[in-house]
């Protein structure tokens, strides 16, 4: 698990104007838990290397591993992954990594997912893992995105069966959408997420500032901090 392996880009697909799905072919991949991430390493012609972490959107057997990458303007790695990389290109990965921010099909308790932007990636993996395992654990997702055009995996989320999904927008909402565009606040969390409960697990993922604000809000609403699991992607 700790060694670098070569991966080949099998396919890519636009998710939004700034985000892309990248499917890697990783010989020897042993599968992963929903919520885990991998380290991805790029090497330039002259040997210069850069490494970043990316959550894994896919679950289940097979050696195809899907990532969802949103472009950070002025970033070093994400613009390459979103705009440049194409099928057949090679890079290296190490993983799967992380054993805390994970959901297992054997976990029967209710689950509240809260995503900000590309923070949907590991949570989408949890929704996929729930579906493929026929789990009946109650799942609810609150997904904050800039605009309706910035929702990653939109078609899939529209068909997520009995997962209760609520969208919230920070810049522009669809016509007729009741909630005005703004960041999630404590009132939103009280109205749009499951209330505190002993068997509830909450997963919060997104940019660091988003995770800080949401996790603080949840604790102030009475959630047990030990049941609020967070993944901070970086940035402000």
């Amino acid at each position, binding site marked *: 698990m*700790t060694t670098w392996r070569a991966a080949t880009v099998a396919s890519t697909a636009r998710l939004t104007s700034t985000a892309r799905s990248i499917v890697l072919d990783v010989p020897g991949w042993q599968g992963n838990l929903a919520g885990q991430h991998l380290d991805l390493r790029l090497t330039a012609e002259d040997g210069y290397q850069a490494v970043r972490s990316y959550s894994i959107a896919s679950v289940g057997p097979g050696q195809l591993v899907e990532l969802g990458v949103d472009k950070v303007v002025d970033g070093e790695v994400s613009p390459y992954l979103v705009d440049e990389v194409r099928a057949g290109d090679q890079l290296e990965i190490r993983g799967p990594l992380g054993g805390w921010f994970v959901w297992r099909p054997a976990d029967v308790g209710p689950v509240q997912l809260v995503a900000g932007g590309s923070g949907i990636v590991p949570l989408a993996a949890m929704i996929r893992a729930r579906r493929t395992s026929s789990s009946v654990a109650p799942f609810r997702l609150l997904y904050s995105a800039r605009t309706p055009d910035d929702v990653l995996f939109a078609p899939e989320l529209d068909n997520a069966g009995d997962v209760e999904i609520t969208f919230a927008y920070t810049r522009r909402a669809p016509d007729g959408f009741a909630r005005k565009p703004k960041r999630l606040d404590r009132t939103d969390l009280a109205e749009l997420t499951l209330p505190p409960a002993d068997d509830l697990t909450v997963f919060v993922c997104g940019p660091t500032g988003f995770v800080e604000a949401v996790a603080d809000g949840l*604790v102030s609403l009475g959630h047990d901090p030990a049941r609020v699991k967070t993944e901070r992607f970086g940035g402000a």
Partner: protein
Amino acid sequence: MAVISRGFGGRRRRAEEDLPPGQYLTEDFPVLSAGPTPVVDTAEWEFVIQTETGARHRWSWDELQALPIEEITKDIHCVTRWSKLETTWRGVSLDTLFEQVETAYDYVLAHSYGGYTTNLPLEDLLDGKAWIAFEYDDSPLAPEHGGPARLLVPHLYFWKSAKWVHGLVMQTDDEPGFWEQNGYHLYGDPWLEQRYS
């Protein structure tokens, strides 16, 4: 095996030569935590070292502030790959705290408010290698960075520098703490790139 990523040029940053393998320089101070940020009031804060006899050496916030305070300038390295050079802190050396502590055990498990734990060999905390830090960059340490006080062990990956530190329990063995149970290395030397178990 050379795997070249076609079309990747990279944006070289300064002074990467001075960093442990696989790290890059950042000017930011990113946050890595497993859950929400605990809020700890200094009026209730205490730091406790517990030994094999059950003895509990305890310092309140004011008692800690009355001990000799050191200014610390160190490079720090996070397992999520950012490094920050010459960060400045104020805090109390673990050497000062351990002056009063008798123990034959070689390991500690650091405990934090909020339930976080991390394991370290005692020798990595002594001889000027570790502090209880409560100021960063001339300001009180912010809660998301571990305030009111965190362990500062800059020669290991930064997850060993337990935020919101509450105390140390002496151990006979090197029992894994929170991240160490969740896939991270038992020791965590950045120069040997001991990231994962």
